[in-house]
């Protein structure tokens, strides 16, 4: 099923989210340049807002690509591995932070988890590099 633009709906969603992300990035670049010459609190506030909006737009784009993108597309794998690496790193970070305060039983378990997760993340980083090389 194609839309009037010739894109199938899932592609339209991905494309529209990419366009939103690109426009947010352009606006962020522009205000960043203004920030270099201006110390106005209003500009600083807008810069912070735009940074958050850009992060959110990036997240929405990634989710759309993962949910509706084609796995034959190398971009799909770049996004998939980026997401896995991000999540894996969050676990490692949280477990490391907590580990020093934990009782011995938990500490042993958590150390094993950290080791496993680091190993998985390492593998995903290797796969991400291969996907990125294939995308070039």
């Amino acid at each position, binding site marked *: 099923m194609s839309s009037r633009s010739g894109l199938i709906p899932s592609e339209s969603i991905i494309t529209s989210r990419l366009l939103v992300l690109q426009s947010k990035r352009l606006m962020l670049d522009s205000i960043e340049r203004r920030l270099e010459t201006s110390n106005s609190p209003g500009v600083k506030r807008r810069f912070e807002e735009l940074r958050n909006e850009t992060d959110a737009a990036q997240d929405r784009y990634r989710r759309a690509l*993962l*949910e509706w993108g084609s*796995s034959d597309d190398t971009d*799909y*794998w770049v996004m*998939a591995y980026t*997401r*896995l690496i991000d*999540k*894996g790193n*969050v*676990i490692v970070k*949280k*477990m490391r932070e*907590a580990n020093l*305060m*934990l*009782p011995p*039983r*938990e500490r042993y*378990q958590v150390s094993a*988890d950290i080791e*496993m997760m680091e190993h*998985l993340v390492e*593998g995903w980083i290797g*796969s991400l590099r291969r996907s990125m090389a294939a995308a070039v």
Partner: protein
Amino acid sequence: MYRQVQGVPIKELERELSGLPGEDLNTSVLPEVAGWISIYEELAAVLRSVISRADSNPEVPELKRSLLMIEQRLAAWRDRHAEIAGVVIDSKAHTLTYAGKSLRLTRREADLLDFLLRHPRRPFTSKQLATLAWQNSRLSDAQVRTYIMRLRTRLQEVGLGEVITVARNRGYGINAASGRAGE
């Protein structure tokens, strides 16, 4: 500091060590474990989604192995979470034991509480609970609400009245720490 404890009988040393800040298993680990479960669940969800979309891709067998490892850890932390929360549910006898007290539940009540304890920090809608905890999607929202309210009332008998939380427009969840805090 270390030298001062040399030669002290082990029992005394253990007592001293158990009093160190942050070393109290029951009060400090529960929210951490709940947090890890949430992130592991998110990671497993991403992996499942990728695997389901790319079934014939050569990357998939390795991703399936990763998912298996993560699911094993997730299961282990879910068990540990229930253990630390101090709530023991005998799924065959449908009994709950907490803080030395026992409570006989119905099968549905036991299944529901067990499911919520194994999925902390996540609210579930009535529909999700009916499908995931009871594998019965035909139960209406009102029926699920009645089960929840009845279970909450029953849990008060063992000091767990606040353990099931209700978040408006989001659903029902569990706050195992509230049971511990009430000890």
